[in-house]
């Protein structure tokens, strides 16, 4: 209990301090935006009888009446502002105007904001920060509610025993997972992440990539028969590397994976390598346990076709694409999947060899369903979707679809 209290205090202190600092700063910058107190003449106004004629310009008086009080302040405040402060001020005005702008913005973010090359880039970046802030706030609120609830229940039941049990369970599982991954590092099938796409991505795309890889590593660790993960072409001072350290912190050095700045062609025999890319003309039929699959660590939001295929071509490697068309009735979206989805699919294939089970991990919004279902059933669901989505045009769409679908069947 005592330790919990200390922890609580720490959290409160650390969260209050920056807030106070920021608040203070804002006050300095915006002496005028603070709410006004009612001046005595207004109180008189209020006391008049409502039947009297309306003074339509009364609001102007109110707005201007604040002036006398604060003029002295503004004169002294008005000095040359630095660029950063000016940008901060503009942001504040945008927030007042009701645009999606974050309430608090750090120095670093402000600099990124000012470096955005165009107006729309700035707008996008602000919206991103705004949403991030909203999510964070919501999470914090939920955490607080949870903590309150836990404190309530804690006072009723003796919690310490169950807690230690949970701890023990978790650390045991951790050990078991580590054991398995260590086994796979000796005997397991290698899986390569190709970290050579840094210059094809923006900073945010690199951050997203690393996030996806962290997720993939997590699901690999928890699987029954993990891959032996290799990060190839990973340079020491690269953006990837920095992002990894941001995510893993001290655990980065203890991860049970192989990290190298060498190319996969130097580590493995060339004829065993298969580069997985959505642009490949070859379609993967079965999962081969003797091959080494390579996944390009790249998030391309602007769909840059052929980049990873070009890598494989240059090195003369075999390529393959997932048989998405063969098993799924594709609806919308690009055929490239996220890295964690790839990991799930590959793990499932390795364990079961079942394409249907593996392709369950393709996001549902991207396809209508599996092709193996009877066609009339597919059409029924599709009709429903189209009626919901498009309303009147359903007949037309259905015909179009039927045509496409029959063509697809004859091609195969």
């Amino acid at each position: 209990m005592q330790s919990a209290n200390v922890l609580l205090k720490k959290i409160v202190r650390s969260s209050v301090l920056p807030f106070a600092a920021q608040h203070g700063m804002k006050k300095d910058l915006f002496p005028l935006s603070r709410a006004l107190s009612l001046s005595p003449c207004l109180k008189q106004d209020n006391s008049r009888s409502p039947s009297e004629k309306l003074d339509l310009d009364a609001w102007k008086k109110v707005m201007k009446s604040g002036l006398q009080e604060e003029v002295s302040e503004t004169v002294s405040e008005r000095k040359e502002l630095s660029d950063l402060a000016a940008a901060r001020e503009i942001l504040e005005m945008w927030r007042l105007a009701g645009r999606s702008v974050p309430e608090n913005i750090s120095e670093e973010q402000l600099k990124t904001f000012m470096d955005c090359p165009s107006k729309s880039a700035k707008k996008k970046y602000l919206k991103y920060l705004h949403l991030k802030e909203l999510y964070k706030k919501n999470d914090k609120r939920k955490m607080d509610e949870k903590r309150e609830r836990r404190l309530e229940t804690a006072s009723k039941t003796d919690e310490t025993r169950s807690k230690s049990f949970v701890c023990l369970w978790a650390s045991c599982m951790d050990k078991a997972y580590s054991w398995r991954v260590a086994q796979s590092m000796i005997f397991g099938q290698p899986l390569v992440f190709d970290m050579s796409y840094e210059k094809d991505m923006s900073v945010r795309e690199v951050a997203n990539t690393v996030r996806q890889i962290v997720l993939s590593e997590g699901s690999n660790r928890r699987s029954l028969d993990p891959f032996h993960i290799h990060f190839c072409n990973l340079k020491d001072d690269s953006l990837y590397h920095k992002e990894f350290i941001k995510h893993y912190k001290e655990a980065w050095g203890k991860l049970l994976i192989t990290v190298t700045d060498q190319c996969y062609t130097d580590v493995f025999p060339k004829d065993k390598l298969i580069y997985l890319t959505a642009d490949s003309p070859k379609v993967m039929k079965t999962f081969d346990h003797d091959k080494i699959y390579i996944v390009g660590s790249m998030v391309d939001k602007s769909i840059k076709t052929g980049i990873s295929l070009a890598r494989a071509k240059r090195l003369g490697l075999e390529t393959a694409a997932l048989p998405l068309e063969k098993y799924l009735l594709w609806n919308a979206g690009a055929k490239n999947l996220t890295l964690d989805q790839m990991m799930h699919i590959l793990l499932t294939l390795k364990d079961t060899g079942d394409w249907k089970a593996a392709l369950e991990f393709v996001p549902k919004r991207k396809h209508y369903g599996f092709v193996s279902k009877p066609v009339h059933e597919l059409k029924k669901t599709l009709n429903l979707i189209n009626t919901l989505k498009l309303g009147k045009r359903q007949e037309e769409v259905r015909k179009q679809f039927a045509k496409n679908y029959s063509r697809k069947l004859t091609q195969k």
Partner: protein
Amino acid sequence: IEPPEKPLQAEEWNRLRESFGSPEIFEEVMFNNMIRCNSPIDVAKSLLTHVAKSNGDVAYNLLVKYLALCVQQGQTSEIRDVYDIMKIRFRILESGAYNLLIRGLSNSDQWRMALTLLEEVKKIMIPSRTNYESCIKAASCHQEMNVAFELYHEMLAKDLVPTLDVLQAFFDFNRGMKGAELQKELFGILLYLRENQIYPHKTFMRSIKLWFESIPGGNWRGHLTSIKDSGQCPVCNHQLEDSDLTEEEYNNLRERIIRDVIHGTDTFRKTSPQEFEAFQAFVENRFPFDIVIDGLNVSHIKPRKRQCENLFDAVNCLAKENARLLVLGRKHMLVNSSNWKREIMKEMQNKADFFFAENISEDDAFLLYATLRSGKHCKFVTRDFLRDHKACLSDSATRHLFRKWQRGHQISKKMFLSVFIQQPALRYDCVVQTTGDTWHIPYKDTFEEKYSYRVPRKWLCIQQK
């Protein structure tokens, strides 16, 4: 909720607010509706008064919304008042308020105020092109041409693209004015249209025509016409510029195609270095060609027919006048299949040179290279608009060159009763052009209707008598 028709007392506003589902955004929603219904300004004022009295303050977003209502109704004095209040309450304003203020004031007799506001905006950001538009229109409306042109050049210097409205305003407000300097400026605008391959719409064209005809002592006459396929103007018998590039432009374009389209960030994306070298050697041995054909594209022209027969028809149709043909294809065309019969392929190879690229290479890039290498007379055949290749070019000047070259050298084919109809490349270049005593200006019929690949067929011919 409907905004009321008459100003309300505080209690009445309170009552309305209570009855509204979410009272915290009541004022905002009410103001939005007032703007939509264009409510009388007094109603808005009464709401502001109510807010000011109950909170002692009016939030910035409400002020902006009120401002929008004032601008909508052209209430100049109110706009000034709101601006004064904003200036007192806030150290700087944001772009939304400035846009409204500039728009509102530039339409009034206080338009000079809009100019000072524009200066204020410049201090904190780059003004938008509509800001400039309002100010330029206001200045030219009040015959301050120097100010207007100054602003116009300033916005061009900031890489803002002027709207057609602004350009039209220059022609409208200078009608009947004298001055060599002024004429030079307006000719400059026409040359701006030329350089950026912009086509004026019908009403804009009329403004241009009227301006020319109104120049005192200029003796200009304008006629609407359409140009013959030969490129001759039926009115003045003047031969329009052809679409050939100059030697320098041509070499420049060729180098940029090799650098940006074929190599790009990675040669392996579209081909491979070995393959490209082999292709270069192939072209060096056999050029110059007269026509380069995109084999796969042409083979899909008629879906009912076999692909090799489509291609065969096209080659036969083009091979007539001893023209040297090059057909680009992929290796899979050589494998005997139902679509690609080996005998027909053999026969075609007697009539034309063939180059087969790898199945995963892009043949369009080769098409461009071979055509450009063969020289100015060489044309190419494809239905593809080649937009993705144009997009690979890094700057807009080269893209314009590419478009011009494409207009002059691309032959596309249409099917008509199972016969190939050749759609010839244009012989003349479709841009604003002048010889000093004549101007030829292509224009669009309506404001928005034009596909980017379609060039206008209607022209304005202006000549000096």
